[in-house]
């Protein structure tokens, strides 16, 4: 049995049916030394207050559900050891999102942005099945693999100062996931996506604070994707001025 330490958890509560504004509840939790922040929240839910609402699922930093602000910083709670925090831990919902209840935030806006950047392979003409699969070398896979590791945890949106100021900004995760397909050797839709990246809420709104890459639990480095998308968008824009078919592939 590992050592137990009592920690105080100050947790944001919000019930849209009762509360005008969010409030906080404080819980004292006997934390084991090997616990993550999520373990303490589960203890509160199981033992102290069953009405506490928050998202979680896999407990292994894969599903991206349990993102919250812990002591003010966007954090994947299943991956954050409690030993890194003091005696009092403040847990609030992710910034820059509407709150549905307690620590649960509304993700519809992000889902619309994600869909808008067309995060799927676009082909001018699909190959017939009998022509076989699209082959890809390990080097071609490496070109985009890093950006495909995003787990949609939304920490980057909570950390991004531009998302906070400009709600229309496409945002780090959606740009990384869209740009990932621009780098895919099987894809032919880069121009379509670049036009979206240059449009309303464009990649050029990014002021390169780099907070998205700082908080990313999977080291996706969305700031790199945004900067590459800026350059790609510029080249495509210039090509559209001089080439008859624009910058289309």
């Amino acid at each position, binding site marked *: 049995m590992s050592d137990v330490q009592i920690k105080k958890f100050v947790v944001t509560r919000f019930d849209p049916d009762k509360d005008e504004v969010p409030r906080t509840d404080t819980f004292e939790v006997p934390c084991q030394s090997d616990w993550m922040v999520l373990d303490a929240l589960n203890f509160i839910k199981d033992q102290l207050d069953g009405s506490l609402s928050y998202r979680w699922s896999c407990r292994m930093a894969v599903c991206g559900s349990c993102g919250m602000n812990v002591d003010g910083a966007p954090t994947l709670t299943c991956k954050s050891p409690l030993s890194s925090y003091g005696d009092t831990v403040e847990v609030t919902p992710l910034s820059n999102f509407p709150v549905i209840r307690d620590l649960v935030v509304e993700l519809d806006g992000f889902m619309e942005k994600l869909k808008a950047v067309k995060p799927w392979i676009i082909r001018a003409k699909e190959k017939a099945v009998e022509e076989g699969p699209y082959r890809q070398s390990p080097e071609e896979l490496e070109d985009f693999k890093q950006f495909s590791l995003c787990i949609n945890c939304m920490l980057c949106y909570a950390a991004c*100062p531009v998302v906070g*100021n*400009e709600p229309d900004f496409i945002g780090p995760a959606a740009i990384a996931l869209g740009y990932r397909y621009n780098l895919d050797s099987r894809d032919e839709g880069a121009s379509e996506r670049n036009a979206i990246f*240059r*449009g*309303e809420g*464009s990649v*050029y709104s990014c*002021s390169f604070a780099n907070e998205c890459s700082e908080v990313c639990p999977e080291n996706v480095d969305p700031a790199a994707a945004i900067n590459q998308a*800026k350059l790609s*968008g*510029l080249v495509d*824009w*210039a090509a559209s001025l001089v080439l008859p078919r624009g910058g289309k592939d």
Partner: protein
Amino acid sequence: MKQLLIVLEPVIWFMFGQGIMIGTILLTGWLIVVGVGVPMGIFPADALAYERMHMLGSNVIGRVVLLGLIVLPLWKGAHHLRSLAVDFGGGDRDAIVGSLLYLIAIVGSLLGIVAVIRL
């Protein structure tokens, strides 16, 4: 106006990015030469003599470099000030503020072109 800014955003970003490069690399070197090297006698005092500088700046490559040194930081400054205005809550007036700042950068760029041609 907002739509025009969105359309021109790629090229504005390009000028801004090049302005950052000029500002951080070339102007830093310039300050080291002018502010440290010459006063401390590391470089001869006549290294920056008018005749030498005029000769350096009046050939085609020198004029292009000078134009870059004048124009690109103007765009960097305009874009930075626009971002600053948005950060300080001026998002609603972004189209007006951005247009005004870029207009100043355009006027400065035109004056820079005239200056290097007349050099």
